[in-house]
């Protein structure tokens, strides 16, 4: 079995609000670049599957050459090789087409895992488009994957609950974050080994851009107002007050 995990390198998704700055509607270039938040969960899920089913695991990314250094962490976590399509488009359709091209080149891919959304654009649509292009089944927000005969049994976590699904054939699964797929810290041996593992750098192909123009990017200012509820006397009462206040604010 051959598993592909899609990983995307993004600007630091945790820049403190007070320090955040945009240039050309994107995070300022001075911020550190790192692997997307959910992508690390996807890699961890991929590595666990690889260990459980003795599969092979390839990391595929679309980005700039400088990302290789950062993507090596994914390899150190358990990937065997890295395939990078060099390009800098933000268009989801173009990205999906390029990822498809890289996956087609690998020929024997059975399962594609991806973080449920990137940590820069947060759109969560590339993997759906990719599945469509590849002709694979697509299941979003997957928390757990198991092989069940020649099918995949997956647990899908959504805001309203979870469902257990089965699918046969090849699939693209977008991975959500759960305690079971907290990304591992690569062990030192693997960090050194990752430096020697093969990297395929592919030139991007042209794809059809979507008919969307970005007019304005707006980051809301964070404001916090604190209200302290008395917590000493009766905790149950405090919890009730908290609940009613959250309802009043329509936060729950």
């Amino acid at each position: 079995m051959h598993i592909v995990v899609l990983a995307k390198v993004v600007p630091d998704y945790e820049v403190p609000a007070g320090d955040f700055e945009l240039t050309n509607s994107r995070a300022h270039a001075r911020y550190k670049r790192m692997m997307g938040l959910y992508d690390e969960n996807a890699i961890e899920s991929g590595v666990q599957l690889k260990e459980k089913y003795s599969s092979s695991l390839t990391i595929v990314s679309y980005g700039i050459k400088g990302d290789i250094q950062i993507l090596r962490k994914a390899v150190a976590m358990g990937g065997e090789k890295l395939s990078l399509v060099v390009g800098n488009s933000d268009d989801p359709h173009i990205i999906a087409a390029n990822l498809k091209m890289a996956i087609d080149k690998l020929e024997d891919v059975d399962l594609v895992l991806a973080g449920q959304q990137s940590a820069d654009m947060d759109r969560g649509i590339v993997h759906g488009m990719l599945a469509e292009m590849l002709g694979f089944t697509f299941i979003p927000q997957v928390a757990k994957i198991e092989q069940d005969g020649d099918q995949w049994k997956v647990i899908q976590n959504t805001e309203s609950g979870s469902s257990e699904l089965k699918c046969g054939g090849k699939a693209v699964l977008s991975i959500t974050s759960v305690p079971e797929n907290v990304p591992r810290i690569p062990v030192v041996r693997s960090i050194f080994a990752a430096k020697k593992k093969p990297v395929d750098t592919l030139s991007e192909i042209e794809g059809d851009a979507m008919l969307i123009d970005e007019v304005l990017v707006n980051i809301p200012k964070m404001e916090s107002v604190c209200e302290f509820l008395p917590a000493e006397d009766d905790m149950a009462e405090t919890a009730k007050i908290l609940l009613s206040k959250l309802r009043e604010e329509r936060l729950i």
Partner: protein
Amino acid sequence: MGRIPYWNINLGILIDAFAVPMIVIFVYGMYGHWKRIRQGKVRINPDLSKSAGKIGPVYIYALLTKGILGTRIYKKIYTGVAHGGLFWGMVILLLGTILVFLNVLFGLPVFRGGFNRWFMSFALDLAGIAVICGILFFLFRRLVFPPERLTEPKARTGFSPIVLLLGVVILTGFVVEGGRIACNGIDNGSFIGNYLSMMFGKTDAWLTVHRYMWWIHGLLALGFLAYIPYSPLVHLVLVPVNAALADPMPGTKMGLIDFSSFEDEESEEMPVLGAATLADFSQKRLLDYSTCLWCGRCHEVCPAAQTGKPLSPKGVIITLAESLQDGHVEDDSLIDSLTSEALFCCTTCAACMEACPALINQPKTIMKFRQNLVMERSEIPEMMGKANSSLELRGHPFFGTGAGPRDWCKDLNVPVFEEGKTEYLLWIGCSVTYEERAQQIAGSMVKILSHAGTSFGILEDFRCTGDPAKQMGNEFLFAELAQQNIEDFSDMGIKKIITMCPHCYNSFTRHYPKLGGNYQVIPHSLFLKSLLKAGRLRLNRESKTICYHDPCYLGRRNAIYDEPRDVVNSMGKLVEMARNRNESFCCGGGGGNYWAEEVGTRINQVRAKEALDTGADFIATSCPFCLLMLTDGAKKFTEDQKIFDIAELVALQLEER
């Protein structure tokens, strides 16, 4: 009549012959310990560098004070006195016995005049009484009212038989003495012997009793000595040796790991990172485990053990001691039996080291296991793992922080370090950069240094020394961050650094030099003291009381106790918590536990309560992690903001001038 050795005994000289097999059994027992210890990785203390009071690998001062005089034992006064009576009583009795042998063999005149009366009679009786009192104290305490530290997590067996045997040796010795005096008349100075002889009365039966008792006493004494290496009393030999070889630098020094062999994947020489089995430890560590007294003093002072966490330093050391004794040197299930959950509870506060009368380095053992868990097995608690990843990705461990690194200096005119122009680098450090409350320390220091006219500057970018990675066991990440800093510092021509965080100070002074970074590093408390002393700062002294909390990495790790107190005293009246200076209790944030989800009672709440209970107007500290932990801990008890860094207090007093 003067005392005649071997009086009433036929062929008494045979006792000397019996001493020979005793010595063989004794030496064989000690050889067993040596063989076990030799299974460690490197020979004991290969550091033969010359320093004052050191001969080869032996630290003479430590040997004499902590090893032989057992100074740490007396920190617990009752136990100390009982131990002192037992130990020094035995030493005097042994000396007396040796003098008897010398008298028999070479006619040394020890049974004459004042020496006989005051040493051979009075002092030996007194020594015997001291030993008996010591034995009774220890038996009573171990068997009747054992303190928790002796029984938790496990009590030692094998102590009572040898102590009872010693008691019998002493008592039979008194009976022999009483019998002799009963037959020969009063012996001036032998107050116990004279008393017993009066009780026995003068009958011929005492000639027979004396003869049998003499042999029983002699043979039991030899048996006792031969039994020592096989019993817990082997610490009589091992503690002095362990003390002599223990590095006197306070706190744990973790050696460098050479990662270069990992470049070659095929290399057979790849070292085990940290330790997973006993065989991965050095001989000195195995000596530590063999030496452990199971006294539990480490357990009693350990913030983790005392707040219901699964870690007990005593538990760790005795598990290793038993494993070593059982020959399980290659057993890699050891680390699992200790559990990673427990090993990550250690705050690396070094309280256990400070309390240990056998000079055992418990945190180093724990850290070695941690290194293995993190760097070989990728096992780390989730929050610490996130901090670790953040360090790797962003160069600081404060993931999810709301505070921007430039927030604290927005309204301040903070100079940037300029090569050749600026004297001191004011090192901000990660917590002060990224934690909103701790940022106020930096603002205060900038005000103070500007006020005092100090030539200082900060770095343009913000970074961490890598200390949190080291504390969490990720030596590799620490080395990467430290090397980068060292390269940059040398490009910038940085030579003098003022730190606000004792963890940074500790890293710069203890770990960076080994990687090639040598600087003059001054903790801010010392710098403030020097500014006050030089008259460059004058503070408004108030009648307020200020309680000072010793940060573990400034106090126990670097023995800096007085200077922060002097600074506090220049602003108000210093009050102390019961646990202070080298006995201070940790804030709970060390060892990466700032990012821990604590089980049991929260350490910071315990310490904050101790500080608040002093009733002081302010609680001062000189570590941003302590500030954050105690501020959080105090929230359980008060809404007032009472915890401050000493720099904040100094800046406040400056403003009021």
